[in-house]
């Protein structure tokens, strides 16, 4: 029933997808949160992941960065299979080095920013490139300053996170992800913790990133943003992909009843 309404995306390109999952499962104890997700995102795609609270959006995103280990299924990142081995409840990491390397390519932006509070903004940006990717300090610093300038925070480079507004913190967190030169950006409700008047500045940064052709997976409740910016919508319900398609198709209505119901709640609210 779920697959009937799934719309095939034109697979014209034979290119390797940026990220793909096959039959991804995740359960916590007896609770099955992801019930077999088959998904792929091509390079340059902006995928908005929508769904009701508790539908498994965050869990799915966190599995892509291996912050959560799936219970079953396979995960490829740019054609490279993430090495997992069977474990008790969840799969286990088979190759730490591989995971740590892939994580720098699949950067994550969190709802609560999660900037390191004991470091200045600049140090936050330089931390992973210098210590994980082992790039040269000077090069990283230049890169960090370029990125900070992009998100409009260059003059706050030496401030500590506690001294920034929420919107500034989230822009700094996006910058922190960008300096790693990731090939995919994951966003988990990046504006949900922000005061309404600060949402715009963060969305603007994300719009610019989308416009320059970055691969992004965005969990969001900002429907207008999802409709305007994404190239594809992924609608999750109860741990399954309930509907999938271009924003024009899905937001046009009539494709999937559940999705229409979900949307109507937002347009009313």
């Amino acid at each position, binding site marked *: 029933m779920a697959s009937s309404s799934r719309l095939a995306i034109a697979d014209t390109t034979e290119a390797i997808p940026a990220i793909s999952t096959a039959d991804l499962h995740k359960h916590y104890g007896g609770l099955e949160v992801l019930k077999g997700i088959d998904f792929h995102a091509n390079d340059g795609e902006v995928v908005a992941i929508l769904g009701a609270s508790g539908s498994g959006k965050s869990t799915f995103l966190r599995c892509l960065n291996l*912050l959560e280990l799936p219970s079953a299924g396979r995960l490829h990142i740019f054609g490279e299979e993430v090495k997992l081995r069977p474990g008790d409840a969840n799969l286990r990491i088979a190759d730490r080095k591989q*995971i*740590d390397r892939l994580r720098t390519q699949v950067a994550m932006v*969190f709802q609560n920013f*999660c*900037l390191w509070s004991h*470091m200045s903004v600049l140090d936050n940006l330089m931390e*992973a490139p210098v210590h994980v990717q082992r790039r040269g300090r000077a090069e990283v610093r230049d890169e960090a300053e370029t990125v900070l300038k992009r998100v409009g925070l260059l003059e706050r480079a030496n401030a500590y996170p*506690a001294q920034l507004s929420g919107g500034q913190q989230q822009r700094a967190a996006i910058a922190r992800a960008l300096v*790693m030169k990731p090939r995919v950006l994951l966003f988990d409700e990046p504006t949900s913790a922000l005061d309404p008047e600060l949402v715009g500045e963060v969305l603007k940064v994300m719009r610019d990133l989308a416009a320059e052709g970055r691969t992004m997976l965005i969990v969001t409740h900002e429907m207008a943003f999802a409709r305007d910016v994404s190239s594809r919508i992924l609608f999750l319900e109860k741990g399954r992909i309930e509907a999938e398609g271009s924003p024009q198709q899905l937001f046009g209505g009539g494709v999937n009843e559940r999705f229409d119901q979900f949307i109507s709640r937002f347009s009313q609210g």
Partner: protein
Amino acid sequence: MNLGIIELLGFGSQGWGGPLLKAAGVTLAAASCGFFLGSLLGICGASLKLARAGVLRTIGHFYTTVFRGVPEILVVYLFYFGGSVVLTNAMNSGGFPGFYSLPAFAIGVIAVGVVSGAYQTEAFRSAFLRLDRGQIEAGTACGMSKLLLLRRIIAPQTLRVALPALGNIWQSVLKETSLLSVIGLTELLRQAGTAAGSTRQPLLFYGAAAVMFLIIGRITGLILTRMENHLAKPWRR
């Protein structure tokens, strides 16, 4: 006998100033070494108490319960007499008859270190538990290894949070070193006792020891507050 206070506490041939100052150095050295040993034990203890394995947690719990619940002086006796029993047995069975004991300074540092380690375990543990999980997760998400995460994120933040509690523990350690006078370490209190005995001026010399403890506590306290303020800088608006 009729020397004035100045002469008694001075640095002349009749004065006790020199020995007292030296003893203050011993107090400070014993306290510092004991506190440092306690920090190592505290980090180990906190790791045990935070471990996933139940056995390790039990060991950690046992350590803190015993050494925070038993009088410090008893712990000093344990290591003082216990140390000499172990050493004497080892020497005797190795063909060296006689009675042996470890130097009082070493015993004192171990005793003070083990006790303060139990308190520092709690300080480190509760500081760790108060860390923001999200920041650790953000590190993981950037591909940091466990060790790197520990070194760059967890350790500095835990230290910052634990520092006020560690400052209090340092003050107790400093005062606890006075117990080492009973096992013959010539620290401040014992030196004051010697002076009091030979001059029959207990009020003066124990008073002097008290003042010196106050001064050492004050100065080291100020240094620690400085450190605290320095480390807290990122969290001020």
